[in-house]
């Protein structure tokens, strides 16, 4: 839910009406100097006690632990459970729990002053730029966490109990820095009950998909809606079409800012496919200008059959979806000659938990994350939020809603073929430029070639910027 809320919570951005120039320097005028002072420290703080297998970081129970949680779509109930786990083991520890939405406004001064919390859930629209935090040495190296024994798993190190995307997404400059806790699955969502009633079935090939769209359109419904105000959503379809056609190398090249990565044949085909949906009138009219709430509501009202989104959708629409609506995910169809199978998709690890490098109790922070990664901690998260976590097998035996069950089934069926991209997080200034181009493409205002050129221009600009920290994938 970090991602959709990123958009709805944008609304909070304007709250101050931010007088233009005050924006630049005024954030922490009270501190006298916005950037504060503070030195560097390499030793893990806290950890005064003896390191044992039950307490691998040597947490001293007298040290207090401060936890800051993003109170977004996932709420903060799960964190209270994780804190209770911590309290059970360290009964003397004083735990401070804070659930907020304006992470940046509240945390930025603390980071600048060198007094951040011990655990921070850096998510939502007001999240701090994570790659900047990692690159400026503000985060604790999580290697020792991943090497530590997983709780209740007979000496298996934590890294072997996690979905590979967790390890991959944690890395900045070769070191794991960020624990992205929740798994988010992207695809095309539909109402299973409606499809059963009409005798429709999500299509596996592009040809069948177009035929299905024609049939749906004939039934007086728009085949597809999207959250056009934020092209991010329809971009998931574009990327999935391209990567499933060309293989994960397409995403690797894009993330590595390789020349002509966006001009890959598969990307062009995917862009053509998107244009085809638009030009054949399969998009809900006016969907380009709808935000996520408006478009998803239209979809809940059966004005459109499919909508692209991540696995938070069901929870987000809980109050709007009519009774009997069975939110279900379908993988995007395959273009001709696809390299990857149908039943895989983009799976992303999100909800970035970090232990700040200048935290007073880093050992406690690491131990807290270790408890989150226990099967017990992860299962409780899924129970409370209906979202799967990066912990393998933690959802077994849980009673799941149709949306969550179908998303988890897709994670399992995709397995090694599931893929992900990172450029939007790694190079944040590039992201809105590509999104803007995707918006123009989805509205049918530019051609596939123009889209590839515009996206490539944004990538080249990023590659040429000397101040941007470059990263590569295999």
């Amino acid at each position, binding site marked *: 839910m970090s991602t959709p809320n990123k958009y709805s919570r944008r609304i909070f951005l304007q709250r101050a009406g931010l007088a233009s120039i005050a924006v630049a320097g005024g954030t922490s005028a009270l501190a006298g100097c916005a950037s504060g002072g503070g030195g560097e420290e390499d030793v893990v703080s806290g950890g005064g006690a003896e390191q044992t297998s039950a307490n691998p970081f040597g947490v001293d129970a007298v040290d207090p632990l401060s936890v800051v949680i993003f109170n977004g779509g996932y709420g903060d109930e799960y964190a209270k459970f994780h804190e209770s786990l911590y309290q059970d083991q360290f009964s003397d520890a004083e735990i401070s729990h804070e659930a907020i939405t304006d992470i940046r406004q509240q945390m930025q001064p603390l980071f600048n002053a060198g007094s951040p919390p011990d655990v921070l859930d850096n998510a939502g629209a007001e999240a701090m730029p994570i790659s900047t935090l990692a690159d400026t040495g503000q985060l604790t190296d999580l290697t020792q966490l991943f090497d530590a024994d997983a709780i209740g798993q007979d000496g298996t190190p934590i890294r072997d109990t996690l979905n590979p995307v967790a390890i991959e997404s944690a890395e900045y400059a070769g070191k794991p820095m960020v624990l992205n806790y929740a798994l988010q699955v992207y695809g095309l969502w539909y109402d299973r009950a409606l499809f059963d009633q009409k005798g429709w079935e999500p299509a596996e090939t592009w040809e069948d998909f177009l035929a299905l769209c024609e049939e749906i359109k004939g039934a007086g419904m728009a085949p597809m809606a999207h959250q056009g105000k934020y092209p991010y959503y329809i971009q998931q379809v574009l990327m999935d079409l391209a990567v499933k056609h060309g293989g994960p190398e397409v995403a690797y090249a894009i993330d590595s800012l390789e020349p002509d990565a966006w001009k890959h044949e598969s990307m062009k085909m995917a862009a053509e496919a998107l244009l085809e949906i638009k030009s054949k009138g399969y998009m809900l*009219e006016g969907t380009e200008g709808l935000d996520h709430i408006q478009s998803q509501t239209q979809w809940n009202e059966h004005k459109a059959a499919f909508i692209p989104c991540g696995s938070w959708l069901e929870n987000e629409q809980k109050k709007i979806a009519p009774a009997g609506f069975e939110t279900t995910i379908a993988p995007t169809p395959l273009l001709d000659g696809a390299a990857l199978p149908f039943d895989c998709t983009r799976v992303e690890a999100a909800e970035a938990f970090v232990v700040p490098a200048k935290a007073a109790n880093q050992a406690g922070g690491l131990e807290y994350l270790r408890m989150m990664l226990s099967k017990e901690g992860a299962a409780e998260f899924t129970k409370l939020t209906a979202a799967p976590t990066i912990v393998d097998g933690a959802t077994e035996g849980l009673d799941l809603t149709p949306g969550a069950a179908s998303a988890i089934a897709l994670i399992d069926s995709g397995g090694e073929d599931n893929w992900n991209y990172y450029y939007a997080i790694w190079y944040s200034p590039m992201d809105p430029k590509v999104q803007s181009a995707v918006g123009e493409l989805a509205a049918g205002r530019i051609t596939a070639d123009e889209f590839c050129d515009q996206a490539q221009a944004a990538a080249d600009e990023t590659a040429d910027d000397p101040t941007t920290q470059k990263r590569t994938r295999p």
Partner: protein
Amino acid sequence: MQHGRYPFIVGFLVLPLTVYAIFVISPFAQAFHYSLTDWTGVAPEFGYVGMTNFENLMSDSLFLTALRNNAVLLVGLPIVTVLLSLFFAFLLNVGGSSGSAGVKGIRGNGFYKLAFFLPQVLSVPVIAVIWSVIMDPTPSGLANSVLGWLGLGSAGWLSDPALALLCVLWVLVWGSVGFYLVLFNAAMSAIPRDIFEAALIDGAGRFTTFVKVTMPLLWDTIQTSWVYLAILALDVYALVAVMTAGPGGPDNSTQVISLQIAQNGFQFGRAGYASAMGVVLFFITLVIAVVMLRITRRERIEY
């Protein structure tokens, strides 16, 4: 009594000046300072980069697009708002049927004033949300329903790059007219009735009265309004952030400087660069305010 004067004045000024220094002067000074650095905004460390940020600004296509859009608003907003509010204020004051009672306002004067002023009590995000709903781009949207009923088809409004900035401009105007109407209305009420009546007796029509009598007598007020509106046009952050696609879209057609400042400073971890944009905006605002006051300066008419 002279000897007690300074402590007396200082006593009154010290608190407001301290508050002003802390909350206004200090952030401004810091913005100038950080504009010369590569500060990320999230780590206490930074280095000095001289004028690099300003040089990069000149080749930043998004910033230049934002500058251009701000320029459009800068021209459009004051002209449309001032003309509309002047027109309505004039109607409210002297638009009534000129019978034997002489010059008077239109009937229901008070109601109109209230109706026009209403947007002023709504916060900007509320206005933005209201208009986003009205300008819903689906055929069942409010504005599109009206168009459809008139047989004019439907428009994309904020989702159409050719229309989006005009939609933003319109909402800005809608939100501002009420305030300036009341302002002009008050200024007009201060003009002695007999001047209008004299003009009427001399055979001046409504239009002539407006151009030859009302406008010159209101010039000071208009001038001030013009500067305020220009400054408003250079900000518009809240409206654009809530209403537009992206925000700033589609196709960056509603990209404005304040949005670029917020994105660079907060989302991209480029606080130094954003500060440089803030400094540029500061000077643009300053220059525009001075120029506006200069070129619109006229001889003051006493009455």
